[in-house]
């Protein structure tokens, strides 16, 4: 897949765009953080994000790490096709206990797909994409989320990625926008070697559990109201994962509300197994963001999660500060605590500098 991505970049013919003359030509915007670099003649945009994390959590060495260095590439091909890819270098650098290491540095294709714009409200997508469950998994880049930690409910029960085909779009329903996603995954055939989607990816968590899809079908709807200040979503998955080889059904609900004085959001899932010996897995979180000053927010989150592997109930509480230093740069400081959380999301201090470029 990496080779394919490199070939596509080469085909795109990357070179700086020359400012066209005449006032009706595209106006080449000066580069700004968080908007990517656009090459109008190639109809190509390159951007990405990076982060620097600091962790001081129970039973682990204090660590300073560049966890993600991610590159996006978007290219329009003709009038109907669009290519998008995200290549991510993860665990790039880490320093703990006064030693610098590269840990398990790796380059991975997070997303690689083509979109075909068929009709007003229908886009067809082929390739590897993010699994459409909940709002967090679809928009999980560090500069775009409020906390350093990711809620358990957004990773634990399903694979973050799917490979196959998807139909998505926006239609009007009762005078409001309704976004929808329908997909079918065949990772067993299309990505047989991949086994990387961690069930628990909080720093210090048990990283031995994976939940990569073998096959999956599912869908999601997201209904927007109050001029997009309120959105309510529902997701459904029917899938098999590789290890343990098991078939599951998952339903999820989520919402986000943007108010005058605070924001509120939440996600919840409930997963059942076809196997009688695997208990149901369920949980949810509620999160609020309160502006303290211009660009400075206080964030609070409460999460409760009942996992099947390991079979336990976990509570995670987070109080955090989030400061938008300038468009594209976010600073975060977070205190994580909880009950029975040492294995999945251990208590401690976390901080991050995240840049969307």
């Amino acid at each position, binding site marked *: 897949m990496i080779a394919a991505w490199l070939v596509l970049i080469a085909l795109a013919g990357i070179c700086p765009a020359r400012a066209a003359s*005449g*006032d*009706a*030509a*595209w*106006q080449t*915007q000066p580069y700004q953080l*968080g*908007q*990517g670099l*656009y090459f109008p003649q190639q109809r190509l*945009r390159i*951007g990405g994000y990076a982060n620097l994390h600091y962790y001081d959590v129970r039973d682990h060495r204090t660590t300073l790490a560049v966890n993600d260095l991610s590159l*996006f590439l*978007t290219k329009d091909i003709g*009038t*109907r096709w*669009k290519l*998008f890819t995200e290549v991510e270098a993860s665990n790039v650098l880490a320093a703990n206990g006064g030693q610098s290491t590269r840990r398990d540095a790796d380059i991975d294709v997070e997303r690689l797909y083509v979109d075909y*714009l*068929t*009709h*007003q*409200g229908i*886009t067809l997508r082929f390739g590897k994409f993010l699994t459409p469950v909940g709002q967090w998994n*679809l*928009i999980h*880049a560090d*500069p*775009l989320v409020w906390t350093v930690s990711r809620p358990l409910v957004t990773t634990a029960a399903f694979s973050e990625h799917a490979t196959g085909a998807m139909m998505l779009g*926006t239609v*009007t329903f009762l*005078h409001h*926008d309704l*976004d929808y996603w329908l997909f079918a995954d065949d990772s067993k055939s299309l990505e047989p070697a991949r086994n990387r989607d961690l069930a628990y990816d909080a720093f210090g968590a048990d990283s031995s559990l994976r939940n990569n899809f073998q096959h999956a079908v599912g869908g999601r709807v997201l209904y927007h109201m109050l*001029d*997009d*200040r309120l959105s309510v979503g529902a997701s459904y998955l029917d899938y098999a994962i590789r290890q343990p080889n098991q078939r599951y059904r998952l339903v999820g609900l989520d919402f986000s509300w*943007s108010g005058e004085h605070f924001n509120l959001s939440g996600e919840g899932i409930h997963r059942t197994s076809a196997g009688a010996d695997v208990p149901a897995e369920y949980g949810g979180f509620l999160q609020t963001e309160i502006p303290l000053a211009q660009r400075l927010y206080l964030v609070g989150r409460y999460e409760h999660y009942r996992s099947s592997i390991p079979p336990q109930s976990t509570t995670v509480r987070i109080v955090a500060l989030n400061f938008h230093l300038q*468009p594209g740069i976010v600073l975060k400081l977070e205190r994580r605590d909880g009950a029975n959380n040492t294995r999945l999301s251990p208590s401690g201090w976390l901080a991050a500098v995240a840049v*969307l470029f």
Partner: protein
Amino acid sequence: MTHPRPRLLAALILQGTLLLTDSMPALAGETQVAVIVSSRAPRVAFDRAMLRAIYLKKIFIGQNGRRLIPVNLPPGNPLRDAFSHALIDMRDAQLQEYWNRQYFQGISPPYVLGSQKAVVRFVAGTPGAIGYVWPCHVDSSVHAVLMISLPTPVAGPDPEACPANPQP
């Protein structure tokens, strides 16, 4: 036989479109902005919901199967601010967050052109392009498919405003 001058023709087209698309006349003190497409493009029906979806890049293909290319005026332009407020009705921070999230999914905001004159020229020559200008800038190269009423006065002086538009 004499031919009507382009600006007069534009006014006639505009008047006809007004009758077709917006039966409510502008109220006193209310200003209107014209949403334009190329006069060479097939006439298609627009409503506010569809236009909003186009400017938020939720719709990419028009009813006629053509790729839609919405264009904006530069940030800080009084007409852009008023148009965005009337059509999209999101707070600045909310809209910024919206585009950040879209960017993560490979979708960028509408392209920007430097002036209303540039918008008219670009839209006229680009099938599928959609722009917005004060009605006095509409000429025979484009036609107005929708008139949007701006309920609040346009903030700040606009050097491209039509003489009849009330200025603060």
